[in-house]
């Protein structure tokens, strides 16, 4: 069943056609990878779907409802949540407070005045639970701005996960991370999203990661969909190999 669908989604930056009439369908429960060279339009596509950018044309449907004009907050409320390419955190907060802030927001408590945030046992308990799922419980009291890069990336996803998404976009969750840490991070993320049955779309450049974790792969090139299929189908697609690797050999 289609959870998300885009129709003719388009975004131009001057002469550059960042996203050029893209039609995609994301089914419920899938782990989809979005691949393509730099400038292919992957992040722009996620920016359009998450309302970080406004499209020039086209429509976005979530559970068959047209959400093209919805604000980021309205989309978050129905469960469309994202992480960022550069880990986007509240750097002066502790790791626990980063996640707790997301929980406060999800529960509509972020503008409450009467109680102390640090004494909300329910919210903090849930935040600790999220940190445990992501293996960050020992870092709960660390300042987020001082975390190592890999843990920052993981915390970025944990903050998004704390919003209890239905559709989670991960923008290069392993970029800038060592090969060993990549597997740890992706194993953790994959385990959490599969356990929570969260539909996930990950932008990723590392093909080992892409083929290991994806149910389906969408390849983009110059703002358009180049190929869309199972990992095996993409692996054998000469056009994808040519445009992504610059060789006609399949991946």
């Amino acid at each position, binding site marked *: 069943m289609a959870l998300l669908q885009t129709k003719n989604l388009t975004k131009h930056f001057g002469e550059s056609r960042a996203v050029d009439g893209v039609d995609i369908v994301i089914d419920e429960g899938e782990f989809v990878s979005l691949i393509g060279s730099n400038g292919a339009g992957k992040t722009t596509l996620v920016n359009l779907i998450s309302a970080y950018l406004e499209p020039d044309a086209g429509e976005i449907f979530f559970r068959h409802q047209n959400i093209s004009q919805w604000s980021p907050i309205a989309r978050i409320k129905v469960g469309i949540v994202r992480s960022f390419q550069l880990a986007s*955190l509240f750097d002066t907060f502790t790791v626990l407070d980063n996640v707790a802030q997301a929980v406060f*927001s999800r529960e509509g408590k972020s503008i*409450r005045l009467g109680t102390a945030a640090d004494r909300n046992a329910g919210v903090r308990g849930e935040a600790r639970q999220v940190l445990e799922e992501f293996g960050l419980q020992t870092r709960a009291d660390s300042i987020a701005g001082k975390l190592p890069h890999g843990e920052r990336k993981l915390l970025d996803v944990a903050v998004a996960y704390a919003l209890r998404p239905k559709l989670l976009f991960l923008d290069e969750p392993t970029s800038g991370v060592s090969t060993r840490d990549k597997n740890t991070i992706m194993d953790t993320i994959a385990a959490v999203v599969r356990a929570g049955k969260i539909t996930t779309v990950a932008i990723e450049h590392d093909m080992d990661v892409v083929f290991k974790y994806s149910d389906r792969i969408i390849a983009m090139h110059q703002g358009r969909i180049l190929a869309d299929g199972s990992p095996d189908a993409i692996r054998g697609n000469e056009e994808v190999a040519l445009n992504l690797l610059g060789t006609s050999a399949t991946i």
Partner: protein
Amino acid sequence: MKGDAITSRGGAISLRLAVAAILGCALLAIPQLVSPYQTLLLTYGLVMAIAALGFNLLLGYTGLLSFGHSAFFGTGAYTAALMAKYLGIHSMETFILAGLATAFLMSALFGVVCVRHTRIFFAILVMALSQVLWTLAYKFYGITNGTDGLNVPFPTLLGGSLTFRGAGAYQRFIVAYYYYVAVLFLLSAAVMWMITQSPFGKTLQSIRDNQTRAEFIGIRVRLCRWMAFLFSGTFTGLAGVLWLPLNRHVTPDVLYWPFSGEIVFLTVLGGFQSFSGPIVGALAFSYLKTYAVAWTEYWQFLLGAVLIFLVMALPTGIVGTLELLAARLKWPSFKPRI
């Protein structure tokens, strides 16, 4: 390790309570120990501390630098002065209620326009709007007496139960008004402390740290900024009302942008990265300015030199510097962190 942390935290809390108790006793005893003039200076300091705490809800907690808070201070002061002149009202409580209402409305109006912007654009926009109020006070001579200003007699306190007339009225007023302001200062500080510790306070800090991320966890950034602006302006307006009986004269100077600069100055002086910094800054500034003015006609030069020294040598302000010293000497932390 955990036990050490708990002991350290407990020590810090005990130290804070001890410091608060000593300061509380000192606040009570001061009028009996010092001259009325020193009491007056301290009252000025406490009034400015309310303004600075309000201002810091925006600067320290929300990351918005306003160069136009004179607008709210002046709104409070002029509301009371105009009520005294045209309505013949002399009740301090009525002044406070009316001043809070007008400062609230002014902040709500300014906020709607200003919180759409951040950084320099926000700072300049608030300043520009504050200058509109200054111009009105300056030009509407028939109502405000322009630069001649408005004189205000001693107000009555506590629903008219304390009046100040006849011989010794000044001394009696200074002492009574000191306690009046001290209570309102403690109440305001307590309310603002609760705001900063609440989920809303955390939300403001999250917006300060990373606006984009705050928006993408579902926080209504503009609404929260507007609310912060509202609290900030209203408390600054309260300070304006409380300031008026001390000065007993108000001119458009309290609406002019250099006065906004003073609020920025004293907040930076104390340290905007802690809750207590603006209080310390306001008290220090009250004495610094008074003695600088008495000492030299070039007092602005002196204050400018202090500001340059502060920014270059002590960017975390007095409280931030004390905190650094305490950390080096391994004392328990007494600065409630932002």
